[in-house]
């Protein structure tokens, strides 16, 4: 960990009061949105039921009618709704993405989470009162990149890719002219979001243009003499021994052979959990922590939101003596992918 850099920040050393970061929770459905609101979210992020967002999965996301109900429910309880429009439109479908921006504004969203610069320009011009957040899919890893969007479109907030160490996050916070949001919990993308074509290389569909990763239609499970095999568009991603926990086959979490050694050559199926870093994140001025998982269950949203609410409240109340409650960790571990958690890249040795 970049403890030296992070701890040299004045707020990290002493008793400077921390400001509570927004707790930004996922909702892939109206019941999930209500669960997030009821369990202590500050913001809930959602998406329309189409390719305009990066969780374009069957049965997931919001119709306009549900979103109207959801925005009202959240607003009545002082919670802000953010709408992810974070895939990249092309000439053929550009009008549909612009229409989605218009719908987000009409439904009363507090902000839209956008990756594409062109779409941001459209939103800034047409809906000056709709706040703009730079999506993690925008791949902005430096304050120079973030300030590009701040200069031109007056974005309010940028979500950092899960690439930077704590020290690097602190540097971005210090120099960016926007609020900074970081990922706090959930599935871990080992690749920079918006910079990964592994899925599209094998299946023809990926996060940037289609809002999907490893589309279910391309997945095939087969029982073989060597074990249970899972293929993506014909490419063998993993093979499981009897009784082995078999996760969803994304290419980055497959098992491969490199120089004669077999294993998770890119990333193990683990989840990110940064509870223990909360005081440092608050002290360095991170304004929002994000929970991943719009594709997850209502129970997941409720549980993760509740734990993080309790943790943030405890941290703000007494940052110097903040300790992670073992019960929180146990509750989160039950929900984690692969049931294992990591500090991820915030801990420098992960890299």
């Amino acid at each position, binding site marked *: 960990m970049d403890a030296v850099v992070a701890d040299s920040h004045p707020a990290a050393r002493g008793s400077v009061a921390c400001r509570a970061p927004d707790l930004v929770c996922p909702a892939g459905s109206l019941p999930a949105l209500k669960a997030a609101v009821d369990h202590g979210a500050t913001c809930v992020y959602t998406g329309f039921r189409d390719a305009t967002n990066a969780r374009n999965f069957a049965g997931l996301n919001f119709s306009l009618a549900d979103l109207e109900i959801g925005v009202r429910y959240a607003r009545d309880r002082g919670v802000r709704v953010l709408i992810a429009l974070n895939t*990249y*439109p*092309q*000439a*053929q479908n*550009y009008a549909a993405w612009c229409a989605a921006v218009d719908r987000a504004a009409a439904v009363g969203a507090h902000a839209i989470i956008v*990756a*594409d*610069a*062109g779409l941001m*320009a*459209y939103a800034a011009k047409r809906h000056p009162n709709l706040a703009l957040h730079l999506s993690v899919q*925008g*791949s*902005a*890893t*430096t304050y*120079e*990149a973030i300030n*590009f*969007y701040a200069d*031109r479109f007056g974005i309010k907030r940028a979500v950092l890719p*899960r*690439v*930077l160490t704590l020290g*690097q996050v602190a*540097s971005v916070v210090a120099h960016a002219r926007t609020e900074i949001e970081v990922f706090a919990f959930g599935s871990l993308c*080992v*690749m*920079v979001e*918006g*910079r*990964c*074509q*592994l899925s*599209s*290389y*094998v*299946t*023809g569909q*990926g996060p*940037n*243009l289609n809002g999907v990763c490893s589309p279910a239609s391309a997945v095939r499970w087969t029982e073989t003499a060597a074990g249970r095999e899972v293929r993506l568009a*014909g*490419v*063998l991603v*993993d093979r499981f021994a009897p009784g082995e926990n078999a996760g969803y086959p994304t290419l*980055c979490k497959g*098992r*491969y*052979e*490199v*120089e004669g050694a*077999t294993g998770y*050559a*890119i990333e193990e199926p683990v989840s990110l959990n940064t509870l223990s870093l909360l005081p440092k994140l608050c002290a360095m001025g991170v304004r929002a922590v994000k929970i991943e998982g719009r594709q997850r269950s209502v129970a997941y949203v409720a549980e993760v939101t509740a734990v993080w609410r309790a943790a943030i409240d405890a941290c703000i109340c007494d940052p110097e003596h903040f300790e992670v409650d073992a019960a929180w960790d146990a509750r989160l571990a039950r929900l984690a992918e692969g049931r294992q958690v990591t500090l991820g*890249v915030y801990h*420098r040795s*992960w*890299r």
Partner: protein
Amino acid sequence: MNVSGMDGAATSVSRGSDAQQARLRLALGPLAYYWPRAQVHAFYEAVAGFAVDVVYLGEVVCGKRHEVGFADWMAIARALEAAGKEVVLSGLALPESETDLRILRRVVGNGAFVVEANDMGMVRLAAEAHVPFVAGPHVNAYNLATLGLLRDAGALRWVMPIDLGADALRAMAPLPLPVEVFAFGRLPLAWSARCFTARARDRAKDDCGFTCRDDPDGLALATLDRESLFVLNGIQTQSARPSSLASVIDEAAALGVSVLRVMPQSQHTAEIVRSFRDGIDGRVTPEEAARTLEALTGATRPGYWRGAAGMGPRTEARA
């Protein structure tokens, strides 16, 4: 800034003033791998004699690589310029630290050459410094609105993201910028904070020992049933097999593409350039050029170009 002549022919076409098809130019993309210093110098001495019009120089993948420093790249750039090449200095695709930003500022402030921005941070640095830039393949520019913003920020040319193809070009015409297409090489598929080469060799990124220097074409990764799938190149993941658009040279030209980009490999780069040159100049048909390259390098047929999976039609390569 020696921008005179940069894309002159292509610009006139994109303005629509000239119905004639512009001559397709050939570029050598930036070296993605970490080669020993002597090998880099020898390679670019040979490049002076290659039939390429444009040469991209500099480190794109890892800010820690130091065999060839900024002053060396500048010397190589001047030598290639003297040999008649249009030189572009490329920037890091994934700047993370203040050190990385310092590297980018030095590239932008080189005072002599156009630059290639591979990240919005470098776009901003170039725009602020009024330095003309090529919007590289790692800038997510997928539509006309974004291209217009880049042009207004000082972009001279757009390298199409690897996952766009002929249909996208057709739908975007007329383009506000000359377009360059990634035409040959292992596809740059993904970027990470993690160094996969160091990980494969049980080393921490901060103490990597520059082990990627042992892999002149990246470190091969195969599936459990021994299909060559990816190549690990530090923080970058590439396709195992090179992707080739040689078979669609004429189609690309007809769609108004200005520049075809060929990527350096440790083997056969001269032959690859020659095949493309022969295809562009009509000495061989595109199909003949494509077959030559397939036989030589195991290159795949167009995938993304056809709106399909990037790996193209499946002809399995066994490790």
